[in-house]
């Protein structure tokens, strides 16, 4: 399969544990259920004071290499943050700025663009996102992109429309795919440009809004080589899927906790409902999915960190498994809570909504399964080992 077989390093260090408890505490302090419900009703949909705190703690700089004024940490560290944010349904543009935009810039290999753009993202002063999908074009099919770009002296001019852009309504910087004469290319566009208009869409996930963004003669900067964005998009999506898988694992773990807590405390027929096998076994099935989802996302992020040969398969395995696991646990969590779980006031539906949106955003399980089959070598004449 691969000439060099590098194994992922799965060790959990003391620093990892400290990082996890720090982020968990931060989420408890800033993104409690009550606070979450306040901010999800606001126009931005998130709280800028918390965003500043994330920046001060260096969480936005984590993945950014030191040469671009970041902390130079790796995917394993960032997966811990995503898992904790997934538990808390953190509503800010962290996934957009870190998992999507930071990774897109790093994957582009464009040193000048990284030097100019990453320090602002790392400092939290620039909220960034990636706009790849269009109204009829999912994330996974970059070749059908209709947005176009043409050179105009020292800049590029964008025309077209993107959709399903995570946090596109609050982003300062958009990394946009568009077709040029040379093929699919990546561009950086400031949302303040007169040719850019972003509008939040009514979104199933109340804690992560998607936006439609139109470009009418918007001034853009080419990121990476003209016509070479295909592989950049592919690796950005793989990396973002691993981050998303960690979020999903965290969300699933939270759903399990809610169910188990409720099953211990709720009594019917004179006993706690957790003593009934119908409930207990359901909780164990949730546990199994949670444990495997956490392991799969951890494993995939560790593969990314060491460049292990299994990375391309592990990314899609984690995406497919964690997406399903979260959606399943979110639905079962409602069932365990009975009628209470079906009310607006209970947080169960916020996870249920997030789980559907996350599983669909960057490609669904069917697409991941097909990718796994390809990546282990089914289509090839002779199988990969």
């Amino acid at each position: 399969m691969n000439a060099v077989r590098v194994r992922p390093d799965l060790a959990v260090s003391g620093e990892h544990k400290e990082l996890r408890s720090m982020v968990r505490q931060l989420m408890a302090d800033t993104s409690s259920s009550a606070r979450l419900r306040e901010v999800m009703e606001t126009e931005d949909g998130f709280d800028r004071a918390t965003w500043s705190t994330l920046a001060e703690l260096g969480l936005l700089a984590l993945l950014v290499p030191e040469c671009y004024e970041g902390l130079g940490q790796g995917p394993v560290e960032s997966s811990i943050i995503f898992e904790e944010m997934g538990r808390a349904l953190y509503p800010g543009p962290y996934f957009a700025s870190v998992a999507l935009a930071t990774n897109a810039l790093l994957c582009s290999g464009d040193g000048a663009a990284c030097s100019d753009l990453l320090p602002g993202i790392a400092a939290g002063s620039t909220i960034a996102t990636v706009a790849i999908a269009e109204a009829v074009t999912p994330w996974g099919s970059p070749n059908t992109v209709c947005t176009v770009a043409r050179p105009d002296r020292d800049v590029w001019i964008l025309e077209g429309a993107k959709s399903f852009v995570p946090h596109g309504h609050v982003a300062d910087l958009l990394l946009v795919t568009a077709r040029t004469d040379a093929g699919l290319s990546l561009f950086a566009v400031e949302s303040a440009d007169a040719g850019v208009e972003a509008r939040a869409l009514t979104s199933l996930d109340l804690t992560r809004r998607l936006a439609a963004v139109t470009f009418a003669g918007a001034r853009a900067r080419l990121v990476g080589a003209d016509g070479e964005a295909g592989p950049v998009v592919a690796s950005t999506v793989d990396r973002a899927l691993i981050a998303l898988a960690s979020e999903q694992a965290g969300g699933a773990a939270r759903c399990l906790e809610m169910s188990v807590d409720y099953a211990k405390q709720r009594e019917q027929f004179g006993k706690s409902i957790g003593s009934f096998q119908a409930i207990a076994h359901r909780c164990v099935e949730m546990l199994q999915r949670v444990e495997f989802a956490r392991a799969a996302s951890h494993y995939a992020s560790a593969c990314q960190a060491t460049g292990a040969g299994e990375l391309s398969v592990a990314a899609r395995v984690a995406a497919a498994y964690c997406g399903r696991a979260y959606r399943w646990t979110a639905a079962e969590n409602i069932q365990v809570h009975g009628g209470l779980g079906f009310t607006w006031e209970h947080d169960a539906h916020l996870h249920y909504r997030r789980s559907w949106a996350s599983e669909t955003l960057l490609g669904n399980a069917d697409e991941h399964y097909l990718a796994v089959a390809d990546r282990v070598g089914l289509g090839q004449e002779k199988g990969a080992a």
Partner: protein
Amino acid sequence: MIAPTILRHADERQKQEYLPALFRGELIACQLFSEPDAGSDLASIKTRAVRDGDRWQITGQKVWTSGAHLADVGEIICQTEPGPRHRNLTAFMVDMHAPGVTVRPLRQMTGGASFNEVFLDDVEVADTARIGAEGVGWRVALTTLSYERNAMGHSSFGGAGILSTDRLMQLIRHAGLANDPLVKRRFGELVTELRVVRYAQEVMAERMRAGQSPGPEIAINKLALSANMARLGDFVVSVLGPRAIADTGEWGTYAWTSVVLGAPGYRLGGGSDEVLKNRLAERVLGLPKPT
């Protein structure tokens, strides 16, 4: 399963006696736990060991004993005292060739016979073959079961066996279905489920290297094995079609039916899935004892 149990519970002399021979493969061990009236409710076993000075006399019947017909020694759990449930059991290593031991093979639904009934009629065992103190046999048994579930889980993601990605791809290509989108999607799903178990076991192995001993959550791997064996059967039959229900003589086709026939056994062996779920609910999730 048995070597790690000896490593954890036996004394130094017993470790010397059994471990080198077990690891060299000179000694084959089996596990004498289940009885006709004590399956899922293992703690209610009735085989008795009665002490007579520095000897014990064991009488009773064991069942579902894998490999008993090949084994030289067996780890047996017996009732030794009238004490309360879970504290009335003691573990021994019994010589499978000793007088009074009768092994009778049981034919499984697959047609094979890998497990047995074992009858013990006044079998004499020295007190030096006792593993752990009197009355702590339940703890010894749980150790073995935990390693059994772990070992079963280890077979749940492939390697070179029937669950290997390569073997499955050979099957698909042989059937000419490598470009069938439905088969491809189902294969991708099966590979996903198998890889996830492998990743999870590597993560658990890393935890063990870091000094955490396997807890009751290890039983999750056994649940994954039974689910994956069922998925595998489902998948291979969908690829083979009628070649899975009658032997046409074509190589590499009908032989896969052993997977279909074997799958129900995985849900039962090593503790039925249901009993394991009860245990996971209680021990890992802290839910009240299931009723």
